[in-house]
Every structure is written in structure tokens, then in C-alpha cells.
């Protein structure tokens, strides 16, 4: 008698406990391969695209009846990271977009593993609950294509005709993606930041292997950091896929320190352990905000180059809110939004200078390299993973 009651109680409570965890499949729309990817417009609720140019006055009087909830997936610091007087851009973007489109709501989500989570979800047939992804780099696109086949594609091909401002984006920020999936919204330039009291600006990358720069450089791990990977690709762009390992051997002999994250190396730099660090060319903007000594935050462009790292946005394939997504991306390319994002992210706007007004506290201190270097999709595809592995093994050198 007692046993039966015990079993009832235990069984009942465990069923109750697990009941909350059961989710009914609604038939995965994300693996639907019949979603139209063509450039013809599907009968949406938006009015036909405006052709009037509006360089200075961003009109909000378009009778856009866009409604619905747009789920924007992005990276953590877009939403949370604090900067001096500018909080992360996410809140601003949401507020302004919802003001411009009163019937629409923006919801943010941050996949903890970044894009990898969505790739894995696609692989396993789990749902990807996002409409727009903000924060794509070229290597992300390469990684997507290495792991997903055509039937499982993650992003749709963008139709530039559905966005007014798409043609304002600078030409040198093109990702080179044959599938045209990402549109740049800001860019950074990776360069060297050095202390001019301790060391001279290195004129070339080769100079870094010379005795006067022995033990002077702090770099980052190319796997998992933007700056580290950018620096590695910069050396590959200059030395070629056959010569870069020799260059790195010389650099390692010259006592370069490769730390794990940008944070670690920058902390070491601020601590004056070494006089030079691979970092962003907008470094002086931060230094200015934090009242640091400018002579310790000089930006150097060896060979007059810097590596361009554009960040882009795309629309998830299979999303029901494509129209809202296009409107959002178009919104992000507006002058005032570009300016806010640039200040908050401390990156350069993606649109041409004539379309955006950046305050002096930024433009005085942010440096653009005379000759930006970048490896596009074609060069990276099929090669990037191999390069990263080769390089990692060389550095770990066991």
C-alpha cells in the first residue's frame, strides 16, 4: 500500500517536473528549402521602394505600414558594453527604429556561442529564432560554407534594390561573397599601437623582425580574436601563403608575445610590459576619452597599411520578416545611426564620408590607414582553417 502511494507520488512529481521541458515541434521552418531567394519582391506590406535621394533629411513620413516583431541576433557588446558617455548602440537603434516604425518591435537575442550556435542549429535541424544577424565577418561566411551545405543555408542573398542606402556603403568594404549575404555597417582597421617614448613607428612589417624591435610586440591568438586573425591575414596578404610561416618564425625568434585575447594583450600594454601592441587604429579615441597620455597611444601603419575588418549584417533564410529586416538594415545605414554606431562601437562608419557626420572628438583621433588591406571571401575560402592550424602549431611549437 505504501509502495503504491510512493510510486504514485514520485511518478507524478517527476512527470510534472519534466512536463515543462517538453516542447512541441512546429515543423521546422528553418530547414525549408523551398523559400524563395529570388530578387523579385514577394507581395509584402511595404510600399514600393522610394527613389528620392535624401542625403540630409531622413524623411519618416513614408507610409510604411511595417509591423511585427523583428528578432535581431547580435554579439554581446552591441547591447551591453559600456563606453564612456555612449552606451552600447543596441538601445539607441531599437528606440529609434521603433519610433520610425510604430507598429514594429525589435527584440534582441545574443546566441551565446555566436554564429556557431546558429550553424549548429541548422546542422541539427533545430530552429533558428532570429530574423537579422548583426555582426558578420568574412571568416564567419567562410565558416558557414565549410559547415553547411546548400540545402541548409543560413543567410539569404541580399537584394540591394530593397534598401535605399545600400549603395552608400564604401566599395572597399565589400565582403567579396559570391552569394552576397552580408552588408557592412561599420569597419575597424587593425594596426599597431605603440608608445613613442620607447620605440619608433615600424616602417614595414619586416622591421618587426629586426633587433631594434626585439621583445617589443604584443600580439593575440589568431583563433578567437579579431585582431589576432587580422594581423595573421595581414602577414599572409603581404608574404603570401608560402612565406608567412617563415616570417612568423622570425617574429617568434624576435620574442613576440602571443596572448589569448585582445584584453590580455591590451592590459599588458597598458601595464607597460611592452611598447607595442596589435590593436585598432581608433585607439586614440579611447585614450582621449579616458584622459590618457597620447604619446603612449600612437598609431602606426607599417607599409602605410592597415587591415580592414568590416562588420556586416544579414537576413536569416527562412525568416518571415524579410521586409522588416530590410527596413532595419536600411535604417542602420542612415547617417545619424551610422554616426551613433561609430561613436559607440568606436569603429568607422561603413558609408561614404559625405553621408555621415562624425563629431570632431572622433574624427580628430580616429586614424584611417592610407592603404587598407583585406583578404576577401575567395582568398579565405578553403584556406583559412588550414592557415590557422599551421600558424597555431608553429607558435605553440611543441
Amino acid at each position: 500500500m505504501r509502495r503504491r502511494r510512493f510510486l504514485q507520488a514520485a511518478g507524478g512529481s517527476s512527470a510534472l517536473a519534466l512536463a515543462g521541458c517538453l516542447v512541441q515541434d512546429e515543423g521546422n521552418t528553418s530547414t525549408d528549402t523551398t523559400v524563395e531567394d529570388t530578387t523579385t519582391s514577394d507581395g509584402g506590406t511595404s510600399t514600393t521602394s522610394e527613389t528620392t535621394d535624401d542625403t540630409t533629411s531622413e524623411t519618416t513620413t513614408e507610409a510604411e505600414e511595417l509591423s511585427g516583431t523583428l528578432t535581431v541576433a547580435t554579439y554581446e557588446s552591441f547591447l551591453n558594453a559600456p563606453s564612456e558617455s555612449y552606451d552600447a548602440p543596441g538601445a539607441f537603434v531599437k528606440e529609434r527604429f521603433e519610433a520610425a516604425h510604430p507598429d514594429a518591435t525589435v527584440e534582441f537575442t545574443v546566441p551565446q556561442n555566436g554564429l556557431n550556435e546558429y550553424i549548429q542549429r541548422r546542422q541539427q535541424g533545430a530552429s533558428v529564432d532570429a530574423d537579422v544577424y548583426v555582426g558578420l565577418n568574412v571568416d564567419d561566411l567562410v565558416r558557414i560554407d565549410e559547415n553547411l551545405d546548400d540545402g541548409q543555408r543560413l543567410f539569404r542573398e541580399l537584394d540591394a534594390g530593397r534598401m535605399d542606402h545600400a549603395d552608400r556603403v564604401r566599395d572597399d568594404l565589400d565582403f567579396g561573397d559570391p552569394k552576397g549575404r552580408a552588408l557592412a555597417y561599420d569597419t575597424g582597421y587593425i594596426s599597431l599601437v605603440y608608445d613613442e617614448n620607447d620605440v619608433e613607428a615600424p616602417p614595414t612589417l619586416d622591421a618587426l623582425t629586426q633587433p631594434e624591435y626585439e621583445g617589443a610586440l604584443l600580439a593575440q591568438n589568431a583563433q578567437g580574436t579579431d585582431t589576432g586573425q587580422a594581423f595573421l591575414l595581414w602577414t599572409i596578404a603581404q608574404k603570401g601563403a608560402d612565406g608567412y610561416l617563415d616570417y612568423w618564425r622570425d617574429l617568434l625568434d624576435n620574442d613576440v608575445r602571443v596572448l589569448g585575447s585582445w584584453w590580455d594583450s591590451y592590459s599588458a600594454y597598458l601595464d607597460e610590459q611592452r611598447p607595442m601592441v596589435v590593436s585598432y587604429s581608433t585607439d586614440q579615441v579611447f585614450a582621449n576619452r579616458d584622459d590618457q597620455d597620447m604619446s603612449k597611444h600612437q598609431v602606426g601603419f607599417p607599409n602605410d597599411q592597415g587591415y580592414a575588418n568590416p562588420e556586416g549584417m544579414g537576413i536569416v533564410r527562412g525568416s518571415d520578416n524579410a521586409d522588416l529586416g530590410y527596413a532595419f538594415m536600411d535604417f542602420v545605414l542612415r547617417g545619424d545611426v551610422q554616426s551613433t554606431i561609430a561613436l559607440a562601437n568606436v569603429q568607422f562608419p561603413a558609408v561614404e564620408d559625405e553621408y555621415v557626420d562624425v563629431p570632431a572628438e572622433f574624427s580628430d583621433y580616429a586614424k584611417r590607414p592610407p592603404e587598407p588591406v583585406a583578404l576577401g571571401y575567395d582568398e579565405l575560402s578553403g584556406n583559412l582553417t588550414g592557415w590557422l592550424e599551421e600558424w597555431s602549431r608553429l607558435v605553440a611549437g611543441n
Partner: protein
Amino acid sequence: MDAHALTVGVAGTAVVLLLVLYVPVGVVFAEAFTTDGVASLSRFGDVFTDAFYFGDLAAVIERPLAFDAHVGALAGFIGGFGVRVAALGPVPYPMPVLPTVRTGLFGFTAWQALLSTAASVVVGLPAAYVLANFEFRGRKTLRSITILPFVLPGILVATGFYAAFGQSGLLNDVLGVVGVGQSLLETNPLFVVILAHAFYNAPLIARVTTGAWEAVDSRMVETARALGASRRRAFRDVVLPQLLPAILAGSLLTFIFTFMTFPIVLALGGLQLATVEVWVYNAASNLQVPEAATLAVVETAVSLALTYAYLRYEAGGSGFSSAATDVDRERFLPDLASVDAKRLAVLAYGVLAAVLFVMPLLALVVESLTDGSGFTLRYYAFLLERQTEGAAFQTKPLPAIWNSLVFAVATLAVAVPMGVVVSVVSSREGRGRTLVDALTMLPVAVSGIVFGVGLLTGLVFGIDLPGPYTLRVIGPVAVVAAHAVAAYPFVVRNVKPQLAGVDRALVESARALGATRVRALLDVQLPLVWPGVLAGAAFAFAISMGEFDSTVILATQSDTATMPVAVERYLGRTLGPAMAMGTVLLVVTAASFVAVDRLGGYVGEIQR
């Protein structure tokens, strides 16, 4: 109900472990054993014969029967030993010459783990001695907060070390007054990494050993002395055998932790000091799950093998303790006349410990209060501002603090019974008992990255069940379950040795007098092993407070963030806000440790 309570406990534990540990990890590990859909060990073959992973040993494994080549290599190795004459000024002295051996990634990882363990033991044991044998003001508080370094996320430790020991750090400021100036971090990077490991793990060893020391029955020592043993003899023959299991348990845990270390090595040492876990991380972030799984399986195999070896040793012990007594402590400084060599040594150790442990924490707090232009409160102002004016999707500090505390208490409530149940059940006689015991250490022995991948692709994406249903476990329940699974091995490791030390006759008498098994456990055994339970509970609390990897994956909404997650999210291009949140983490954690310890001690008092 009483009679079945143990069965319920076992069933509940099994369900939690299955769902949150074995299935996710098993699914990922399975990928290591399949190549192109066919079960095979070829991936392991690739790893073992790769000189990058196993150095010179790989050549041996690749062609095990090529004896002439191997004998030649061995001869070369032995011939590599030698002595050369170096000179210190005009004085010559012999310097040993060691042969160069390619250790491979695994070899290097094991080597630095060994050094780190040795360093942690050397730093941690004197602390245990002081805490167990001396009485001084603030002893209880000090004892509670020794576990603080264990909780810190990697980024805070790295920053703390830079801020404390760096070129322009606190230590140099202090030493500069005396006229010495050399950055500690400019020395060997391996040395710094080992120091950081000691920072993390010496408290673990100290805590575990203190718990064991306090559980020593002082009457046994008195008996030994009364029978004629000298102080030293009594210590060596009575106390030390009871301490050794605890010290070894702590060392084993430290070795496993440092064997699988990841963020600290990259942050302070760099890629040149990469460990196996770094490669697991690289493979996982390139979505090369089979490669990551292969390396993780080898790591886990090594860790579990060591655990098994230790447990065979531990099983050989026996105990006769029958009652926990108050520990006999001498007063540390009753008056100035009592200062002798022993106390001076303790004071010297205290200074060194303060430098190693307190300075990074202090430097962290100082960092959060300064910016380029001196003292400022603006990072704390940011915290307040975020709390009051933040948007719904932004991480706010107060919910993070609350979540941390709630999750930690819930973890305590789940992990301690789990650990006690497992300790009791695996204490029974039976074949394969040691093997089962080794398996309970799986959460500690599994790479955190693989665990995260397993949780993500298993619990978060959902496990497909027959029919249209998917089982997804996310949110607070999942977080608590993951924390409990990560914490219960510590409870087991603290409780089991002491449980084994309790005289079986006591339990048998209780049962003979009519108590059920559970009654005997609760009324007789637990009070006797209460210091062990407390120590385990403190660890469970600490693990939960400091847990980051699985929390970040399972707590998908901003309102289930914990303090370490908040620290990471506040890392913008400036360090300040993250440091401020880190200081809050330190203060809250310290306060809660003290509370947990006092509460536990109070409950222990009542029980007696």
C-alpha cells in the same frame, strides 16, 4: 518514506546526472569514436602518432616494434645528460645539462600541471597548518574567505595579476619605497602561470586539509603522547595518516584542474604555453567537433586514470574515529614573549601569502576606483545607471547578484544531498566500487568546453523524442542542475573519506536499536562527518558562484545572468565597469562564504 528516502535520493541523483551530464557528454564523446559514420579508433591513432601532441613519444607509438630506432633514441637521450662548468664570476660551478626532449602538447600540459600542483601544495599546506592549529582574531573569517580566489573568473585573475605584479602594479609601488623595482611578470611566463595556478588552487588544498585536520580526534593524539610518543612522532603516526588522504585528494583535484586549464594560460602565458584544452577550444570554435572530442576523451581518460589510482590508495585506509571533538588550538600571540621561531616562520608565511593572495584582489579593487586621471567613482556610477536606466535586454547588476545567490543556495540544496547519497551508496562493499567512485569525478575530469558543446547541442537545442516532442531543458532549473553536477564531486571527495573513517560499529548499533538506514545516516554519521559536509558545501557554493561556462550557455535570457556572466558582459573597450562588477562579486561572495560557514558551524554545534 524514511525507508525509501535513500532510494529516492539515488533515483533523483541518477536522473539529474543522466540528463545533465552523461547524455550531453556521451553524445559529444561518441563523435570521437566514429569516422565517416563507422565506429573506429582512427582519430585516436592520428592523435597518438602526431608529434605535435606527443612529441618524441609519438614516434614510439607509431612504430612500436622498431626497437633499433627506439633504442638508439633512448641512448641519445641518456647520452644527453651531462655536466658542464659554468662560472659565477671567477668561481666555477657545475651545471647539469639536460637532453632536449620534444614533450608534445600533452607532455607540456602534464609538466606544467605537475609544477602547479607542487606549487599549490607548498603554498597551501602551511595555511592549513596555521588555520588548524592556531587561534587568533579573525581566524574563522579568514578560514571562510580562503576560498575566494577559487571563484574568480579568469579575466579578473589575469587583470588582478597585471595590476598587482605588473610593471606599474601595486607590488612594484610598494617595493619601490624600499628601492627594489623589477616586475614579477617580466620573468619567465611559465612561472607566472604557475603562480596564478597556485593562486587558484592553494586555497583548495588548504581548505581540504584544514577540514581533515579539524576532524582529527585529539584524544587519539593525547593517547599517543600518553603512551610515550614525542610530539613529532605523534604527529607523524597519528595525524599525518589522517591528513594524507585529504592532501592527496586536493592535489589530485589541483592536478586535474591545471591539466585542463585554459583561460589563465592564454591570458598570462600566451599561445606559446598552450595546453591541450586550448586545442580543444580551437577545434570547437571551428566546429570541428570530432577533433575536439578526441582530445577531450584523452584528457578525461588521463584524469580518470589518476583518480582511479588515488581512489585505490584511499580505499586502503581505515578509521577509528568515534566522535568529533573540539580542536585544540594554541593562541597565536597571547603576548610578545611567546614569539618564537615557529611563530616567526608563520608570520613570514603570512606576509608571502598576503602578497600572493591579497594583492591581486586589492589591485582589482583599486583598478575599479581609478582611471587615467586618478580616483573616480564613475564605474560604480555606471553600475547604478545600468540598474536604473538599462533597457530590458541589457544585463543589470542587481538581478545578477540575486541570481548568483539564489543559484548558489539552490546548488547547495541539490549538490550536498547528491554528494552525501553518492558517498553513502559508493561506500558499500562490492566489486567495481572504485570504478564507480572514479566515475563520480567525471564532471571535474571532463573538459568544460566539451561539456558546453554537449549542453548546447543536447539540452538547449533539444533532444528529439518519439513523436512531435522535443525535450529542452533551459533556464534557471537547468542552470542549478548544471551547477549541482559540477559541484557534487567536491562534496563526495570531502565527505567520503571521513565517512569511511567513522567506526562501523556505531552505525550498526544504531540500526540494532531500531533506526532506519536514513535515520542512522542523519543522526549518527552526518554529525560525525560534519566538517567534511561543511567543506563540501562551501565548495559547492563556491563552484556555483564562480561557474561561467555552462551558465552562459543555459541562461539564455538576460534575466538569468549571474555575476561572472555580468562581469564578462561589461567588458567593453574599457576595463573599469567589469572591474567594478568584479569588486561587487568579491564582496558579495566573501560575505556569503562567511555566512554559509557560520551557519554551518552553528548547525554543527546544535547537532552535538
